[in-house]
């Protein structure tokens, strides 16, 4: 019995939150990696682009709520996904048209494009703050829990409860759907194959008649979908605050590089590696050990490897270690 309780403690406080957070990071990391693989620059506006899409979802959610439209037990934000994604793609394409295209045609070095993306980051932040302000907003409605701790305890008669928030379930399910469609698209369709070819060898791809404009267009569309959905899921699970989204860019970069930048599947796994490392290293295991160890050996300290203050530092340290010893990422394999 104690053993089941111990497992439940772990599930409740580490594994389920890590899966959720990992999914959110994974979507962002695939976005980073796609831009890096096909457009060939590190996009420092990543966090703010995700924030931009989420901003529309928040505003539309408020609008729909005022109209009385909702999805019953599901959050209203789910209906806003197509609209927010559309706005996001429009924004990305116009940014590409007015800013990035010039440097791409000129074949500028990646560093210059990265610097330009810093400019885009500033402008995007300004637009977001002018439209919605820097405040913290929650836009979750509908049923909050799928399974409550008290209900679970009643059902099973165990000491420990299992809580599953609806946002956690929604995040994991939607991520799985989006990511599988994306991999199917990249690997099985003609357009997807042409994108991979373009990423592998630009000159050869151009020679074989692939239209670079179309590849870039499709890339931004996929990027827009991933960025918006990732942003909305994060906002539903925690809350929407522009500054937090900017900061999230850092673990997302870490995930993309850990997975081997340019490799979408690596980025997908990288998101979970970062999330699990952050949560496993900063969780206080006292309760867990109280269950599995005999009474005499019970720990009196928190059994925490690192304080939660260093949550971000964990992912950065992993990244630095990976960069130093295996710059191509821990998941070797073909890129894109």
């Amino acid at each position, binding site marked *: 019995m104690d053993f089941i309780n111990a497992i439940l403690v772990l599930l409740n406080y580490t594994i389920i939150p890590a899966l959720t957070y990992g999914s959110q990071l994974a979507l962002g990391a695939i976005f980073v990696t796609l831009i890096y693989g096909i457009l060939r620059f590190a996009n420092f506006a990543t966090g703010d682009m995700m924030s931009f899409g989420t901003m529309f979802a928040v505003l539309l959610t408020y609008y729909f709520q005022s109209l009385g439209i909702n999805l019953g037990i599901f959050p209203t934000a789910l209906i806003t996904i197509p609209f927010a994604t559309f706005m996001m793609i429009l924004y990305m394409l116009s940014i590409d048209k007015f800013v990035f295209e010039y440097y791409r045609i000129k074949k500028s070095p990646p560093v210059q494009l990265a610097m330009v993306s810093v*400019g885009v980051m500033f402008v995007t932040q300004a637009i977001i703050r*002018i439209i919605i302000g820097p405040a913290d907003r929650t836009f979750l409605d509908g049923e909050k829990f799928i399974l409550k701790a008290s209900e679970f305890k009643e059902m099973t008669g165990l000491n420990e409860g299992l809580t599953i928030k609806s946002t956690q379930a929604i995040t994991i399910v939607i991520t799985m759907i989006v990511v599988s469609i994306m991999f199917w698209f990249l690997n099985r369709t003609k357009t997807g194959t042409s994108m991979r070819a373009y990423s592998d060898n630009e000159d050869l791809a151009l020679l074989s008649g692939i239209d670079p404009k179309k590849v870039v267009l499709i890339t931004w569309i996929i990027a827009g979908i991933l960025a918006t959905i990732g942003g909305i899921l994060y906002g539903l699970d925690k809350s929407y605050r522009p500054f937090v989204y900017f900061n999230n860019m*850092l673990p997302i970069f870490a995930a993309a590089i850990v997975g081997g930048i340019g490799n979408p599947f690596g980025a997908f796994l990288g998101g979970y590696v970062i999330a699990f490392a952050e949560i496993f290293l900063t969780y206080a295991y006292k309760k867990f050990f109280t269950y599995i160890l005999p009474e005499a050996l019970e720990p009196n300290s928190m059994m925490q490897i690192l304080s939660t203050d260093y949550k971000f530092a964990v992912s950065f340290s992993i990244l630095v270690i990976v960069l130093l010893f295996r710059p191509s990422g821990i998941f070797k394999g073909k890129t894109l």
Partner: protein
Amino acid sequence: MRQYTNVITAYLIMFTLIILVGIFQSWSIALTILNYCLISAVMTIGANIQWGYAGLINFGIMGYTALGGLAVVLISVAPVGEAWRVGGLNMMICLGVIVGMVFSIRLTLKKIAKSKNRNYLVAAIIIIGILLLRLISEPAIESIEAVEPAKTGFLGGLGLPVLFSWIAGAFLAGGLAFVVGKVALGLRADYLAIATLLIAEIVVSIIKHEDWLARGVKNVIGLKRPAPYEINLQQSPWFIDLVEKFHSGKLALINSVSEKQEVLKQLVIDASSVYVKLCFTGLFLTVVIILLIVTQKALYSPWGRMMRAIRDNEEAAGAMGKNVVKQHLLIFILGSAIVGIAGAMMVTNDGLFTPGSYRPMRYTFVIWVMVIVGGTGNNFGAILGGFVVWFLWVEAAPIALFFINLFTAHLPETNEIRVHLINSAPYFRFLVIGTALLVIMRFRPQGILPEKIIKN
């Protein structure tokens, strides 16, 4: 002379703008802006050495700035005797353990041939070291933080004059740059950018959360100053005489004695704040001029030519027998040390150390915009960039407010759009800075004052 016309014009325009702020807003604000412009200029000199001379991307400026600020606390604050008594010994032992770890790892790497066993040994040393550190430091940290937590709760510093901390800041930042450079400089440009960005974030999170070191997010206030305090100035007779002489014409117009006293008192208060800021301006200007002379000399020396050669073609420079790795490390350390000085200057100017305020937006990306807008590879350009961008950063909100009022003047006071826009005026600074960067990158990628190669 003619080749300097554009430099002189650009600086004249900049100073006119600052003087205009003095006339229209207040001299105190103008001097605050000028002081921050000078601090930014020091930062841009540092960043420009790395990016302009050597082509190294350092997105970790925030980390070095924070270390410079930490140096002010560690050097100038008086030591907390009680805290040293309860935990000082343990902390010193910890320092010894860290040094021991580093040396034993170096020794292992040197003496034992590359093998799996060596990796295990290194891993074992690190794990044992960390366990030891936690065992020794935990009780010490607890007892140090328990010493008057509202006022101290940290070890304090050395109690030396604050100006020493500027040098110490350079050494701290340079030391970090040495470690970072050793491990990360081999990376490709954009990887280096991301790695430095994240390392800076780690440094700041350590400063934020290790309360025993510098009180963390509880901030250290009331730091020493290299300039007199306003209160003391307002009571010293020579200063009051000086103000009286300076404003004698204005004061002579007032007849009643009591009214004259009142006006004089107000003038003395205003003048004291301006005087203190002028003292800082003098100090900062000295630093900027010294750095400018040194960097300018270095740029046009054989060493500067070698750096440019390495930047423009690493392989060719390597083939000519230049040690590219060593020079990169050197310039990374030098640039970061200068940024460290700027960090110390800034905390000295503010008189308080607030680790919570170190954010990459303000301390990394804005500095980069300064370097790129001003002119990469040209020290005058970088300094000008510091001035222009800082000026825009501060004045964007008032200017935006002015335009919002102008364009929404026909709307009623309570109009929702108008109120919303007026409330979001501060955020127009991001828009202005971002647009400035994009426009400069597009139409004048070499910056306002481009790099100049003097051939003789």
